[in-house]
Each structure stands twice: as structure tokens, then as C-alpha cells.
């Protein structure tokens, strides 16, 4: 052991001192989170550029490897697809006609209002949480790009998460599958209100849990679940997933269902962030 020198502190006392620091930090950040936010801010401002760099290298090598693998497959597929395209061209014209008709009808019914268009910006995901327990990821846009805490994050066509911490050039996003996530939603054709709970355990099987559905609601497997109008933080009408299974609760008042999320959380690299604030839309 090398603690015999006079200037060294005994590990016992060091442990005690650092434990006290930890406990103080915990208490302070629990009751007054803003006071210690600067520590996070400065540490993260050193780490995030490195992470972004590593992520870029990762994306680059990933794409090169994929390219090599895919060239042959693609050649085969290309031949096949070219033949198919001819068939589709015909169909497209048919659909275009139908679409024009649909738009006319929608205008008649003024349906557009229920699907409002939001302003969006794109961002890259550059890091995720470093344990196996949480579903938190970081995106490379922050307050300088008009992000704010509570902004909804979309991926493809589905809701991916919400910004929970926002810094100058990056933000922290909690995915809807995170255990702490809780969203007010409704089930589409029947308009039944419900809450979607993220649950790490059920997500291992690829599903999320939907709770508190009224037992009289007419819902079927495959119904679309979207964010509801009563949610304070989420814009209405964003797709979260599709119902996979329905079970009646033992209290005989509510139904619990599981949904398959619309977003593939195993493959998130680019996301869209809605830059409108919820209150401004309403």
C-alpha cells in the first residue's frame, strides 16, 4: 500500500468526504435543480463535441460497410424492381386521379383542420444514455436553433419523444418508450381517451402499454393511437402506434391495451422536431 506518505489522505476519509459531496449534490439538485445545472452544462459542453465526432466516424464506417455489402444485392434487386416499376406507373395514374378526388372531398368536409401542419426542423441523434436502463438520446440542435424544453420529437411518421433538457447546441430527448414517459392519447376512430406508459419491460417484447381506456369504447386491434387534444405537452394528432392486443382490467371499468410503436427505436439516426409551441397552436 502506498498511503504511508504524510501528504496522502486515508481512503476512508476520502470516501466519507466524497459521499458527503454526493449527498449534498443530490439534495441540492433535487430541490433546486437550476442551481447545479451549470455543472452539467459545462461538463457536457466538453463531452458532446467528442461524441459528435465519434458518432460521425461511426456513421461513415457504417455507411461504407453497408455499401460494400449492398452493391451486389442492389444490382439483383434493381433488375427485379425495374420490371415492377412499369406495373406501378399505371397504378400511379389511377391513384393520382383518386387523390385529386379525395382532396376535393376533404375540402368539402373541411377535414384538413384535424390534421394541422406543424413547422419542423431536422436533427441528428449523436448519443444515447450510457446504461442499459433508460431510453434517452441526444440530438445536435439546441436553443440556438429554436429548440425548447417540451418540444415534440418525431421520427418518420411517429412520435419519438420529447425534449426534457435544452442547452445551447444540443438537447436531451426522452423517448416514448422510456420508463418515465407518460402520454395522454386517444384511439383514433372511436376517439377514446387513454394514457400511454413507457415500460422498459414490455418494450423488450416490442410493445408499449395503454391504460385507462373506457370499457365501452369500441376499439379493435390495429386501431391507430394518436396524441390527444387534452395533452399539455404533446401536439394533437401525432401517431404513437397501433393497437396490438386488448385486455379487460379486473376492475371491469377500464381496458388495458398494448400498442406497437410507429417508430422503430432500434434504428434512429435522424429526427424531426416540431418547433411550434403547444399553446400557440391552440
Amino acid at each position, binding site marked *: *500500500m*502506498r*498511503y504511508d506518505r504524510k501528504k*496522502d*489522505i486515508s*481512503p476512508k476519509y*476520502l*470516501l466519507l468526504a*466524497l*459521499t458527503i459531496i*454526493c*449527498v449534498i*449534490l*443530490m439534495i*441540492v*439538485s*433535487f430541490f433546486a*435543480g437550476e442551481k*447545479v445545472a451549470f*455543472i*452539467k452544462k459545462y*461538463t*457536457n459542453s*466538453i*463531452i458532446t463535441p*467528442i*461524441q459528435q465526432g*465519434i*458518432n460521425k466516424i*461511426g456513421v461513415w464506417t*457504417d455507411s461504407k460497410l453497408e455499401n460494400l455489402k449492398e452493391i451486389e444485392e442492389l444490382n439483383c434487386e434493381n433488375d427485379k424492381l425495374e420490371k415492377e416499376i412499369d406495373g406501378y406507373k399505371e397504378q400511379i395514374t389511377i391513384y393520382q386521379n383518386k387523390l385529386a378526388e379525395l382532396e376535393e372531398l376533404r375540402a368539402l368536409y373541411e377535414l384538413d383542420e384535424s390534421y394541422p401542419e406543424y413547422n419542423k426542423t431536422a436533427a441528428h*441523434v*449523436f*448519443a*444515447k*444514455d*450510457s*446504461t*442499459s*436502463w*433508460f*431510453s*434517452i*438520446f441526444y440530438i445536435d440542435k439546441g436553443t440556438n436553433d429554436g429548440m425548447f424544453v417540451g418540444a415534440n420529437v418525431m421520427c418518420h411518421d411517429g412520435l419519438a419523444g420529447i425534449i*426534457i433538457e435544452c442547452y445551447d447546441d444540443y438537447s436531451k430527448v426522452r*423517448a416514448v*418508450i422510456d*420508463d*418515465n414517459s407518460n402520454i395522454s392519447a386517444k384511439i383514433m376512430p372511436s376517439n377514446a381517451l387513454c394514457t400511454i406508459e413507457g*415500460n*422498459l*419491460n414490455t*418494450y*423488450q417484447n416490442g410493445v408499449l402499454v395503454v391504460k385507462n381506456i373506457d370499457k365501452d369504447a369500441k376499439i379493435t386491434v390495429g386501431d391507430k393511437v394518436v396524441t390527444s387534444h387534452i395533452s399539455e405537452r404533446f401536439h394533437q394528432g401525432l401517431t404513437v402506434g397501433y393497437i396490438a392486443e386488448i385486455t379487460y382490467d379486473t376492475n371491469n371499468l377500464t381496458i388495458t391495451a398494448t400498442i406497437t410503436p410507429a417508430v422503430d*427505436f*432500434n*434504428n*434512429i*439516426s435522424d429526427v424531426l422536431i416540431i418547433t411550434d409551441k403547444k399553446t400557440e397552436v391552440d
Partner: protein
Amino acid sequence: MRRIICLGFLIIINFTLQSTIFGFHDINCITPNLLLILTMSFGLMRGRKEGLLVGFFCGFMVDCFISGIMGPFMLLYMLIGYVNGFFHKNYMIEDVLLPLIVIIIDDIVFNFLVYIIYFLLHRRLELSDYFLNIMLPEALITSLLTVIIYKFYVLVNRYLKEKDRGKEAK
């Protein structure tokens, strides 16, 4: 001084790797706990004090990055580093079995405590599912990586020791 810089560098590299490469494109996957390997290795090779300090700063990184409040991961990594320091007596350079056993126990204890703090108190009672789906795979992949990374740390430690000794001789 050289040791401090070297360790700080290792902590940062390990942390960034853990949060980027291993979760590449996948938000919800099993991540090997590289920081735990680092804490364990230096606790084992250098004793309680260094394990404690390395653990403290590893936990500091994790806390800054994922947890809402500062502190819990710091405390966790720190305690693990400290406890691992007790095995310093049994440390031998060629020995691979001891770090392997220690890291498996460490990882399971670490994840079990995370489960209790963040999940059990949050009314998630299915311990067996969490154990099979998360703790066990993570312990396995972490211990596998330990075999490779630990050797590297031994080399780093030896290099630092020689430099220290060289300085004292002067």
C-alpha cells in the same frame, strides 16, 4: 500528474464510447458498462483510493449526462471502486480470473441497485424479467470485454508505474 491526465483521458474516452458506439442507431439496447470496467480495474490494481476517485469521476460523467439529479451514479460507482480496492491485496498481474469474477459481481450489483432505485420504487416488480433481459446480458457482455480491456489497463498501469519510479529515482 501524468497519472491524473491519463486517467481523465481514459474516463472521457470510455464514456463517449459507451454512449455512442455501443448504442449506435439503437436507443434501447444492452450497453457494456465500460466505465465499470475502468473503475474495477484501477480499484483492483491501485487500491481503494484510486478506485474511489476513478469511480467518482465516472459516476460524475454519467450523472451529468443521463440522470436528472446529480449524485446517485457518482455514489454507486464510487462505492464499487472503493470496495474493489479491498481486493488489491490479492492482485497479481497475470491473474485474469479475479477481475473477471469481480466484474460480474460488480455489474450485477450495480444493475440491481439501479433497478431498485429507478424501477422497483417506481412500481415495476417483474424482477425476473429485468434480470433475464437486462442484467444478465449486460453482465455477460461486460465480462467478455473485461478480458480484452483489462489487459490494456494493466499495460497502462505498468507504464505509469515505471514513469513514476523513474521520477523518484531522479
